[in-house]
Every structure is written in structure tokens, then in C-alpha cells.
């Protein structure tokens, strides 16, 4: 199972190689990956239908409880099948769609990474590992939306989707960690045992809200919905795959998975039902006025995601089983419709529905796809979309006290969606002929075969619902409610849902006929800009940039002396503040007295002579009028300090210090050469300020050291530990070295990395600038 998820990442690495071998068949060859994954997941069906749950565990970071635990139950398997199945269609489709594009190689790399991460999201049981896959889908989505990165709009949309979804992911991480703290486990399948514990916990509201920020951003729920229509900048196969069939459903997937863990409360119902319902209503209404085929579909996707969220909010077996079927139906028809839009765009050169019509003569197969998929989306009998919509109505009707409210908005949205499906899947093929390009020809079979299959499946699964999808949807339902079951059937008898369906169709037909007045009516509704969440995004985004600029100008002013000034002043403030805050002046004076007394006891001629020399050298460095003499006297200070190291028994330090001193003199001499003639720049005022800071810093440091040596109780535990284990564990007798390369190897790694960055910085500043000037 781990290998199945991993295979996408592996294939992503060898994509360039495959294209180098044979460009023509590479796309088709790559389609084998999703196909074989699809077959791989298909073979779990008998086991899952028998009620089994298949686990596979791979230890990753066991002591943090981060493990790659995979679980296949009904719901996970359904999603894995959707992902790999539609993945196959999209891989094949793209091989023709992007055949002439130079960027086909990165496309397959990104989409393979995406598919692997998405499979990880839906089969992973460990929430922390799931988070990793979750963010990987955001990143691959970012890369795919920004596919045409030459265009500013693409870059804007890509960054927007990344910031929104990955930002939401962070909220999700926080909630998952809090859940882990409460339940003591990070496994989704074990968390539901602590359900009552969780919902009675004080932290429950914050956990739930953080969790929902994560899932709402991913599934484009209000107020985060705006990134999805913008994401239509991506190539159409990407929109079909990520932004309708799979990735945007990840949020919904997680919410349904967490229904038994976080659900069953009023807060859950109101947040999901409220935001889901509003998203459904708002997006479906906004969809009506769109003229771009893809944006039309995008808004209807947002609306459907809202429906699914609302259903999860309503909870209950009916709602969940309706949600599963509705979601499944949507993946099939929406994927097909997006691919149809792609074919239309590819063949006619436009996606504007005002400029196309009567394409059925030129695109016969595409017409069949579009019409079949649209009919399923409209909820016409006998498509699976019909079953989904009937179940949706039924669940909404039985949702309790507020069902009149929910059923009203559901029916209105369904009417809107009905019209939108017709606009996008049927109208382009009928009416009078319109097309920007005269020569419209049917797309190659790579592009039509997949969508045909998706559209036909919508019909087959509808007609033969009870013998085909009934089993897997039942098992998916049982992943949430182990004892529940449903029976899918086309005809439920003459009841209220059927009546509502007829009503939907009747009003929907009116909307289709009266598109023009409807659109102009909607366009008349003016809503002030600041009500749009997308504007909030812009405000926050620009505000952050402005703030960054202000604080960068303040902190990163480019003058080394101010950096040092800031660092030292802050140090004096913080350390000095806490030092004098915690100790009385009496105890400080006392400690100085003790320390002086102690050091006078053991003092000898070396110490005094070195002290005097250091003092003389540093005063000389301060007063000297030439740079070279200042450097030389600083060198004397350095050399004497290494002498102190030797006397007090730190040969390692002494050696290093001495070599550093030597090299810095060489460096100084080299730099000196480049500096202008020496003179005193600073005014008396700044010199006094610097003197004060230097004195304060020096005396603070001396005071701390004196205080520590007089009073401080060292915790010798660490030194003793190192002394004892240095040879046993570290295989070395030189404790300093063992600490550097073994016990504290991580620090050393950091230090040499910083050193390298500094060297690369010097190199690029001097060398590359010079090269640039020469050019």
C-alpha cells in the first residue's frame, strides 16, 4: 500500500527520462501508472465488500507517533478508485491536449506528485502523516495552477490558492495536534472511541474551528471559496482532476472522516450546515452569470462542495449516504464536463459560451459526452445524478426542525445547477453555429475516450445502481456508521422528493430559456466590493507586504553598525533587565566582593602581565589613527586571549583562536586595500552613544560572569555525562571534539552551513557583480 502511494513520486522522478526516450508515446506510457493503481485498488473490492478493513503500517518517526499507517475501508477505497480512475482519464487526455506544449514534462511530474499525495491523503490513517500529504497536494496544485507562469494572472491565482489552502493546512495541523493531545492517538480510526471525551473538552470549539478552517479552505467553502474560480488558470485537465474531481474533495473527505470524531454537536451542525448551505446557494447563483465555460463549472463545483458540506453538517445516516452518492456522481459528471470544456477550448479556441453554438455537427462524440454528463448533473432520470439528488432531497427533508429552511435553499441551488449544467454541457452544441475558428474537428481518441467512459458510467451506474455501486457506497457509509445501510434505486415511488425534482426541472427549464434576461438581472445586483472575501484576501496580502516593507526598512537598513547597535542594545535591555530584575544590588555587590577576594588569592605574575597587555592593546586599538595599527593591536588581544586558554587548560580553543587570528589579519589586509582613506566619519554625539553602549555591554557581561562564578551553582550533570560517555559512546578521548562532531553534531552542522552561506554571499557579491559589470 505504501508502495502504491510512493509509486507516483517515483514516476515523477523518471518522467523526463521517459520523454527523452520517446516523446510520442510517453504520455500514453505514463497513463499506465494510474491505470495500474486503479486495478490495484480494484482488487481490494471483494475484501472490502466482505466487511474487511485492510491495514498496513510503516514506521516513520515512531517516538512522535508519526507513522505511515494506511487503511483501506469502504470510503477510503471509493476515493482511491475515483482518484486513480479519473487520473487515468486525465493522463491519457493530457497526452493529446498538451502534445504540442513544451511544458508537458513538468505537467506529468507535477500531476504524478499530486496523484501520489492525494492517494496518501485518502488512504492514510495517521493524521500527522496525512497532514504531510495534504500539504503536498496544495503544493502540487500551486505548481499546476501556475503552469502558464508567464502570465501574471496564473501566478496570482497560484499564489492565492497556495496561501489559502496551505494556510488552512496549518490550522488543520494545530487542530490535529490538539486532538492527539486529548485522545492520545493520531490514528483516525482510533479517535472516534474518545468522541464523548472530545466534545465535552473545553478546547472542543477551538479544535473544531481550526479543523474547519483547514477543510473549508481546501474545499473552497465560503469565505475561502474565491481561490477555486481563479484556479481555472490551470490547464483544463488539471481543473478537471484537481479542482473538481479530487483535491477540492479532500476537505469534504476529511470532514466526513471526522464526523464520528468531532460531529454530533450543535456547533458542528450549524457551522457546516450554515457555511455549506450558504456556499451552495451563493455559488450556484453566481455560476448563472458566468460566461467562461470553466468558471461556470468552477462555481457549480463550489456549490456542490457546499452541498456536500451541508450534508455532513446535517449528519445522520440519510445525509451521509446521500453525500457519498452525490459526491460520487459529481466526480463522474463534473470530470467529464471539464474535459468537454477542454475539448471545446482546444478545437474552437474559445471558452466563452456566448461565442459558441451548434458544435454537434463538428464534435459529435464530444456532444454525446457533454449531453450525457450534463443530464447526470441536472439530475435527470435514469442517471446516477438523479439518484444523488433524490437522496439529497430526502436527507434534507428529514433533517429535523430546520428542514424547511434547508430544503428551500437546496431546491433553489439545484434549480441553478440545473440551468448551469445545461449552459455548459448542452447549449454549446445546439442552436445556431458560432465559433471563432472555422475549422472545427473532433478531438483525437485520447481526449474523447476517457470522458466518454466517465459520461457513460454515469448512465450505467444510474440504471444498474443496485447491482454496481450499491455495494461500495454501502461500505463507505459503514465506514462512518458501521451499522447503517442503504439501498440505491432509481425509483422510490411517488413521494415529496420526486415532486421536488419535477419542480426543479420545470423551473430549471425556464431559466435555460430565459438566460439573457436572467443574466442581466443578476448583473444589476450591485454588492459593495468590501463584502467580497477575495477583496479581504487582497487587503491582507497587500497589508502584509506593506508591513514587511516598513519593518525591513527599519531593521534591515543595510548598515552594519546599526545591526550591531540593535543587537547589543536589545541584549542589554533583555538580559540586563532580567539580571537586575531578579537580583538586588546588594547581592550583586556582594558577589563582586567575593569574586575579587577569590581571584586575588590565586593571582600570579602571568595573569597580571597579560591583563595589562590586553588593556594597553585595546586602548591603543581605540586611539590609533591608522587601520593597520588598530588591526595589529586587536591581533595582540586575540593572541593573548588564546594564551589565557592555554594557561587555563583549553588547548583546542587556543589552537582555533590562534588560527582564526592569523587568518583574520590576512582577510583584514585584503579588505583594507579596498577601503577609502581612513578618517573619522562619526560625530562626537554618535561616538558618545557608541561608547555608552559598549561600556554597558562590557560591564553587563563582566557582571554576569562575576556573579555566576561567585554564586552560581553549576549543574555539572552535563559535563559529567560527557566525561563518562565520551569514550564509551563517542569513541573519543577528546571531549571537546566528541561534543563538536557527535553529541552536538547538529549544532556544528548548522554552523558550517552558516559559514558556507557567508562564503557564498561574499563570492556572489564580489565575483558575480564583477561578471555582471563586464557583461
Amino acid at each position, binding site marked *: 500500500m505504501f508502495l502504491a502511494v510512493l509509486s507516483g513520486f517515483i514516476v515523477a522522478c523518471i518522467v523526463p527520462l521517459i520523454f527523452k526516450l520517446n516523446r510520442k508515446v510517453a504520455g500514453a506510457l505514463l497513463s499506465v501508472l494510474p491505470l495500474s493503481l486503479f486495478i490495484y485498488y480494484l482488487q481490494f473490492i471483494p475484501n472490502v465488500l466482505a466487511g474487511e478493513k485492510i491495514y498496513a503500517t510503516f514506521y516513520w518517526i515512531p517516538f512522535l507517533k508519526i507513522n505511515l499507517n494506511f487503511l483501506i475501508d469502504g470510503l477510503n477505497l471509493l476515493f482511491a478508485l475515483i482518484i486513480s480512475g479519473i487520473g487515468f482519464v486525465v493522463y491519457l487526455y493530457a497526452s493529446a491536449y498538451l502534445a504540442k506544449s513544451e511544458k508537458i514534462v513538468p505537467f506529468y511530474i507535477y500531476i504524478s506528485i499530486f496523484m501520489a499525495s492525494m492517494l496518501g491523503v485518502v488512504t492514510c490513517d495517521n493524521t500527522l502523516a496525512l497532514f504531510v500529504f495534504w500539504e503536498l497536494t496544495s503544493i502540487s496544485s500551486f505548481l499546476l495552477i501556475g503552469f502558464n507562469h508567464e502570465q501574471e494572472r496564473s501566478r496570482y491565482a497560484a499564489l492565492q490558492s497556495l496561501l489559502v489552502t496551505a494556510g488552512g493546512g496549518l490550522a488543520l495541523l494545530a487542530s490535529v495536534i490538539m486532538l492527539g493531545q486529548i485522545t492520545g492517538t493520531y490514528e483516525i480510526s482510533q479517535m472516534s472511541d474518545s468522541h464523548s471525551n472530545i466534545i465535552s473538552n473545553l478546547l472542543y470549539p477551538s479544535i473544531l474551528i481550526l479543523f474547519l478552517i483547514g477543510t473549508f479552505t481546501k474545499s473552497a467553502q465560503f469565505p475561502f471559496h474565491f481561490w477555486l474560480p481563479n484556479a481555472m488558470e490551470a490547464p483544463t485537465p488539471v481543473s478537471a482532476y484537481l479542482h473538481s474531481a479530487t483535491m477540492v474533495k479532500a476537505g469534504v473527505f476529511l470532514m466526513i472522516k471526522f464526523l464520528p470524531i468531532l460531529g454530533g454537536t450543535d456547533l458542528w451542525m450549524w457551522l457546516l450546515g450554515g457555511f455549506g448551505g450558504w456556499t451552495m446557494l451563493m455559488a450556484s447563483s453566481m455560476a448563472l452569470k458566468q460566461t467562461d465555460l470553466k468558471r461556470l463549472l468552477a462555481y457549480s463545483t463550489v456549490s456542490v462542495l457546499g452541498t456536500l458540506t451541508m450534508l455532513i453538517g446535517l449528519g445522520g445516516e440519510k445525509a451521509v449516504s446521500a453525500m457519498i452518492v452525490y459526491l460520487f456522481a459529481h466526480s463522474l459528471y463534473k470530470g467529464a464536463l471539464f474535459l468537454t470544456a477542454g475539448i471545446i477550448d482546444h478545437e474552437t479556441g474559445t471558452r466563452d459560451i456566448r461565442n459558441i453554438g451548434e458544435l454537434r455537427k463538428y464534435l459529435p462524440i464530444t456532444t454525446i459526452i457533454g449531453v450525457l454528463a450534463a443530464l447526470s448533473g441536472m439530475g435527470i432520470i435514469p442517471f446516477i445524478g438523479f439518484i444523488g439528488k433524490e437522496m439529497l432531497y430526502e436527507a434534507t427533508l428529514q433533517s429535523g426542525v430546520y428542514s424547511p429552511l434547508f430544503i428551500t435553499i437546496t431546491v433553489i441551488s439545484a434549480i441553478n445547477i440545473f440551468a448551469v449544467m445545461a449552459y455548459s454541457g448542452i447549449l454549446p452544441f445546439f442552436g445556431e453555429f458560432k465559433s471563432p475558428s472555422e475549422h472545427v474537428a473532433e478531438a483525437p481518441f485520447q481526449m474523447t475516450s476517457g470522458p466518454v467512459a466517465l459520461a457513460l458510467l454515469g448512465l450505467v451506474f444510474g440504471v444498474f445502481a443496485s447491482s454496481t455501486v450499491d455495494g461500495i457506497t454501502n461500505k463507505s457509509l459503514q465506514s462512518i456508521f458501521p451499522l447503517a445501510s442503504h439501498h440505491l434505486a432509481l425509483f422510490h415511488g411517488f413521494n415529496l422528493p420526486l415532486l421536488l425534482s419535477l419542480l426543479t426541472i420545470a423551473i430549471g427549464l425556464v431559466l435555460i430559456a430565459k438566460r439573457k434576461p436572467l443574466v442581466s438581472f443578476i448583473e444589476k445586483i450591485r454588492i459593495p466590493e468590501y463584502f467580497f472575501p477575495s477583496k479581504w484576501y487582497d487587503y491582507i496580502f497587500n497589508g502584509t507586504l506593506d508591513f514587511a516593507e516598513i519593518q525591513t526598512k527599519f531593521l534591515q537598513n543595510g548598515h552594519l553598525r546599526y545591526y550591531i547597535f540593535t543587537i547589543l542594545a536589545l541584549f542589554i535591555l533583555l538580559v540586563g533587565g532580567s539580571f537586575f530584575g531578579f537580583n538586588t544590588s546588594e547581592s550583586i555587590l556582594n558577589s563582586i566582593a567575593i569574586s575579587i577576594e577569590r581571584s586575588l588569592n590565586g593571582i600570579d605574575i602571568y595573569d597580571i602581565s597579560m591583563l595589562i597587555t590586553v588593556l594597553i592593546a585595546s586602548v591603543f586599538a581605540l586611539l590609533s589613527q591608522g587601520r593597520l595599527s588598530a588591526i595589529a593591536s586587536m591581533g595582540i588581544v586575540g593572541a593573548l586571549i588564546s594564551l589565557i586558554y592555554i594557561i587555563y587548560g583549553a588547548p583546542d580553543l587556543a589552537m582555533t583562536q590562534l588560527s582564526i587570528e592569523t587568518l583574520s589579519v590576512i582577510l583584514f589586509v585584503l579588505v583594507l586595500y579596498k577601503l577609502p582613506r581612513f578618517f573619522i566619519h562619526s560625530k562626537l554625539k554618535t561616538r558618545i552613544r557608541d561608547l555608552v553602549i559598549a561600556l554597558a555591554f562590557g560591564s553587563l557581561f563582566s557582571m554576569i560572569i562575576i556573579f555566576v562564578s561567585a554564586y552560581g551553582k553549576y549543574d555539572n550533570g552535563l559535563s559529567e555525562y560527557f566525561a563518562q560517555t565520551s569514550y564509551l559512546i563517542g569513541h573519543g578521548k577528546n571531549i571537546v571534539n*566528541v561534543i563538536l*562532531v*557527535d553529541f552536538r553534531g547538529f549544532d556544528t552542522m548548522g554552523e*558550517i552551513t552558516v559559514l558556507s552561506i557567508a562564503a557564498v554571499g561574499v563570492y556572489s557579491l564580489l565575483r558575480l557583480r564583477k561578471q555582471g559589470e563586464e557583461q
Partner: protein
Amino acid sequence: MRSIILRTMTMYLLPLLLIFSVFLLFRGHNHPGGGFVGGLVASAAYSLYLLGFGIDKVKTIFRAQPIKVLAFGLFLAASSLVFPIFFGKPLMTGVWYEHKLPIVGSFGTPTVFDTGVYFTVLGVTLSIIFTLFEDKE
């Protein structure tokens, strides 16, 4: 400024200092020394040669680009930290060869790490000094 005394002395000092730096590197584990100071001594040796003979001459005996030496050192150090995971141990665990090797003594991933430090320090110092020196000329 190119004094003949410095040149003559450097001819003898350079190999000695380089040997000494390697000596320091491997000695470090049991006695004062180590990769950091070893790398510094080695760069001091080349710097001495640089002062005596100039940048072009140094490049004939130090042919690698310092920035690549730096990258090599960093890679060596980092990979020695990753190495233990292939033995099923957590990242950065010291893995030791059972027997002692001649010259090197006990050999394990920390030894490789220290060697990485040696090359990083050498690369860092020399790339800064070389760059500055070339800029001067």
C-alpha cells in the same frame, strides 16, 4: 612585497602545514585538534603561499574551485548524518567500524563528519580569500 625569504620558506612550509592539518584532523578525536582547526591550518598554508606567489600560482597547486570544496565538505558532513538511517538507526547516530584503522584510528560517521567540517572550513576560507584577492587585482 614578494620577498624571496617568504617564497623559499613557503615552499617548505606548505607541505608540512598540509600534513600537519591532516594530522590535526585525525588526531582530534583523542587529543587537541579536529576538523575545524585542521581546515583553518590548511587554509592558512594556502594563504601563505598566496602571499608569497600570488593568486595565479596558487591556482596551479589548488586547482579545485574553493566553492566546490565547500560544497563537497557540506555534502560529506550532511551525508554522514544521514548514513545511520540505512542501518535502521535514527538520524545522526554515530556508526563505528569495529576495528581501528592505521593513521585514522577509530573510524565512524563522526570521523567522516569531521572531515566534512575540514573541507567546509577550507572551502569557506579559501573562497573568501581568493575572491577578495582576485577582486583586488
